[in-house]
């Protein structure tokens, strides 16, 4: 996977990465499966690991990536089907397990890299999956040519058939699979189709397994049912880094159906972790019985080293740190001189809270640990991480651990971490039973790798022409790099301030400064990680500069983004950033919402745009704020430039969903801590927005750019919140500088 360091699984070295890369187009993936050597040629239906062609012409395409709702189980088979040249309505899919192979160089991929994060599920498989389809097609052509005794060059295909026009013959793929499977893999991948010739890719297709979802047939991780399976829950420490001092399970053990109760040891405070927290596991004959058993436990907790952590203390420390000097990550031009010579200084602080991932399917995992092997079934974004977590818990070699991964009931970055897999494997190992570990919603809200919170101080110096000559962002936060092995303190800032983000290389004198707050709240990757905080801060601040210097917020953005040109971008989503693509988007959404019109008091339009991991998006939002502070979102225009849209239906869905996620989070979501304990517990105090918040006047537009697809899973979220708060300012003159908005509009 070509993803940035923060998304590459820790133990995957560069060398392993290259080995995996070379396997991708080599014999592992496209080679002859065992069945071809043993079965009669006429019985073989399988062509490599990914393609099975049935006698009636139906094609089953293997999907190697976790489906978390982003549409990858539809999009990647579209690429295979396109190059293979089959009709899409004859395609169905088959989820594949984790494939890893032990080599002299360590473990490498059997089915190509498997894992989704950083919006790379499509882009890292774009060439690979097309080559899988094109190579199989080439083998089918060779098989047909051999049968006809002619040169493959005189043959072509039509959907499902190899055709030779000069002979006037055609053969269905299904008749050729056996011969094709016995052919060697071509040295080089055959040429790929031109984008202009696509019949499937780039067209509107529905989610391939949607019918199973709406009829309740889809099996998520939580739906795993295996013979003799027991059910487990864990009472985790309510204190950050706390441990059970003692516990009394006598009442719990008397409950009919409670089978076992034992302690689970968590990591030492501050040390790298495999599981999140210490606790007490309860195993029972049903989920509800296990929960009843847990409720009956009496546990005395050692509050641990973070018992005094609180949100109040955290924010006070951040403010205090900003009084001093931090670590300077970027220092372009002469910032001090630019500020000293400025005609006007604009300066504001913004606060962004901790938030919970809250995927709707709570964490769960099936594990069956036997003496020499282990079976894991989990909803995960990183099945290779699940394999490592199970290896840690069991001491087994990874080649003896089989990992199946289900359709996932929401990812958002939470399931990049496989702590729940490690927990399940520990419990199965201890009991010897196949078990399903189930988290409740309370477990999930209180035990997460939360999106980091931080206090941002922004200062800009403008010259007499109103141009921004100096710019600084000073951030005091808890870094997303939480207890990572071999992570030096001086690198912590890189997770929170992306060095090459706008306005770098646009404002000449620019400084980024960081202060780390080591609060005990666990942190991790939350959809579009630091982009959500930084887009809110920067796009709010641009608006404030415009208002305080008598400029129009739209025009100021257009002036800053400017014409199309490629700026260096060293972080994930690079190597370049073209700010002119933001100019096009911000103009588009402004025009769609009729930006310039005069609005009555209490009604306002806000704009924002952002470059996220290689893709571009913009939002225009219109709101009405009543005299009592009631907020009504009247209209939303969202637009994305993802280069080339491979699966436009899913691109639109991700843009809609990202927009809603951004607004929902900005409106009401915040995790706080007091006395070392997370204060929220469920959706009553962590209120995800419902349908009533979102208007029917909601447009999501795809603006094609070129023939290179970018990811789309995270691009729709960062600019949504600042577009909303900029609209609130336009309507009321009230500037939201602290998220969530909650009751700040109440008067």
């Amino acid at each position, binding site marked *: 996977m070509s993803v940035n360091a923060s998304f590459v699984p820790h133990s995957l070295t560069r060398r392993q990465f290259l080995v995996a890369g070379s396997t991708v187009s080599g014999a592992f993936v496209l080679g002859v499966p065992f069945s071809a050597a043993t079965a009669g040629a006429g019985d073989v239906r399988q062509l490599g690991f990914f393609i099975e062609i049935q006698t009636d012409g139906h094609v089953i395409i293997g999907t190697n990536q976790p489906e978390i709702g982003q549409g990858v189980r539809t999009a990647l088979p579209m690429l295979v089907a396109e190059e293979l040249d089959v009709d899409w309505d004859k395609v169905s899919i088959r989820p594949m397990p984790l494939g890893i192979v032990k080599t002299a160089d360590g473990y490498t991929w059997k089915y190509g890299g498997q894992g989704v994060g950083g919006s790379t599920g499509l882009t890292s498989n774009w060439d690979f999956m097309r080559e899988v389809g094109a190579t199989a097609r080439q083998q089918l052509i060779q098989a047909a040519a051999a049968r006809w005794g002619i040169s493959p060059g005189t043959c072509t295909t039509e959907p499902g058939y190899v055709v030779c026009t000069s002979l006037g013959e055609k053969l269905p793929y299904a008749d050729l699979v056996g011969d094709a499977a016995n052919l060697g893999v071509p040295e080089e991948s055959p040429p790929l189709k031109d984008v202009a010739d696509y019949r499937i890719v780039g067209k509107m297709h529905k989610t391939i397994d949607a019918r199973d979802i*709406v009829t309740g047939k889809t099996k998520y991780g939580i739906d795993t049912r295996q013979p003799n399976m027991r059910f487990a829950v864990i009472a985790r420490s309510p204190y950050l880094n706390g441990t059970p001092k003692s516990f009394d399970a006598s009442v719990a053990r008397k409950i009919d159906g409670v089978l076992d109760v034992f302690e689970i040891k968590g990591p030492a405070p501050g040390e790298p972790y495999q599981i999140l927290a210490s606790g007490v596991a309860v195993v029972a004959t049903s989920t*509800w019985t296990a929960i009843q058993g847990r409720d009956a436990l009496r546990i005395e907790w050692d509050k641990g080293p973070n018992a005094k952590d609180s949100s109040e203390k955290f924010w006070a420390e951040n403010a205090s740190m900003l009084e001093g000097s931090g670590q300077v990550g970027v220092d372009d031009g002469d910032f001090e001189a630019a500020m000293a010579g400025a005609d006007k200084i604009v300066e504001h602080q913004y606060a962004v809270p901790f938030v919970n991932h809250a995927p709707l399917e709570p964490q769960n995992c099936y594990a069956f640990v036997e003496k020499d092997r282990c079976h894991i079934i989990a909803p995960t974004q990183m099945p290779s991480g699940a394999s490592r977590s199970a290896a840690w818990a069991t001491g087994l070699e990874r080649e003896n651990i089989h990992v199946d991964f289900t359709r996932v009931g*929401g990812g958002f970055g939470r399931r990049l971490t496989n702590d729940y897999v490690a927990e399940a494997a520990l419990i199965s190992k201890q009991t010897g039973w196949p078990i399903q570990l189930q988290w409740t919603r309370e477990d999930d809200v209180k035990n997460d790798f939360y999106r980091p919170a931080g206090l941002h101080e922004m200062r800009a110096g403008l010259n007499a022409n109103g141009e921004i000559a100096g710019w600084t962002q000073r951030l005091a936060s808890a870094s997303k790099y939480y207890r990572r092995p071999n992570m030096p303190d001086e690198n912590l800032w890189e997770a929170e301030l992306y060095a090459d983000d706008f306005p770098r290389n646009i404002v000449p004198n620019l400084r980024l400064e960081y202060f780390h707050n080591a609060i005990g709240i666990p942190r991790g990757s939350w959809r579009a990680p630091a982009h959500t905080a930084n887009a809110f801060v920067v796009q709010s601040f641009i608006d404030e500069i415009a208002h305080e210097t008598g400029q129009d917020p739209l025009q100021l953005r257009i002036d800053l983004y400017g014409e199309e040109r490629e700026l260096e971008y060293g972080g994930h989503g690079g190597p370049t950033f073209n700010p002119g693509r933001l100019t096009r988007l911000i103009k588009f959404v402004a025009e769609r919402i009729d930006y310039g019109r005069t609005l009555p008091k209490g009604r306002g339009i806000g704009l924002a745009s952002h470059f996220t991991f290689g893709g571009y998006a913009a939002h225009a939002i219109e709101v009405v704020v009543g005299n009592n502070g009631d907020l009504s979102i009247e209209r939303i225009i969202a637009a994305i430039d993802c280069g080339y849209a491979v699966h436009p239906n899913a691109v639109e869905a991700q843009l809609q969903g990202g927009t809603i996620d951004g607004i929902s989070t900005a409106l009401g979501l915040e995790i706080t801590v007091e006395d070392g304990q997370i204060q929220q517990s469920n959706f009553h105090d962590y209120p995800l927005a419902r349908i009533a918040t*979102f208007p029917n006047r909601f447009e999501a537009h795809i603006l094609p750019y070129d023939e290179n697809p970018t990811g789309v899973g995270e691009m729709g979220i960062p600019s949504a919140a600042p577009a909303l708060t900029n609209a609130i300012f336009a309507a009321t003159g009230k500037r939201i500088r602290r998220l969530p908005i909650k009751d700040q509009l109440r008067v």
Partner: protein
Amino acid sequence: MISFQVNSENVAFDGDGSTPLLWVLRDHFNLTGTKFGCGIGQCGACTVHINGAARRSCMTPVAAIKGRSVTTIEGLAAGNDELHPVQAAWLEYDVPQCGYCQAGQIMATVDLLQRIPKPTDADIDKNIRNICRCGTYARIRKAIHKAAELQAEGGSDVS
């Protein structure tokens, strides 16, 4: 022994009567289409019909449904290869992303359309309180209006 009907079949549960219907359906009858989301009636992922009306099964003790009739997502359509009009509308607008909440959304919508056959946007806002974490609300709204149309056109199941 607590006897009731699930998807038109007679069933009995001989465990603790305080067990929420959700877990009885999932762990004892293996009907996993009904989902666990929050356990406190907030999210609606566990929505089923009890005697035809939408209820949060995570908050319904199984003892309370003695002699009643439960319909889950698996039993919503008239036959195995058929779709309820609400399911058909969901497919037409390709509503699901992760899909986890959608059984509950569909069960809630069927109930809404029984009470208000042609709901306005305001009716939808007031009555559909299920959470979708992926943010499929824009498509859910369209699919509800479409389902209302499909039911008005005939109301019979489509395949």
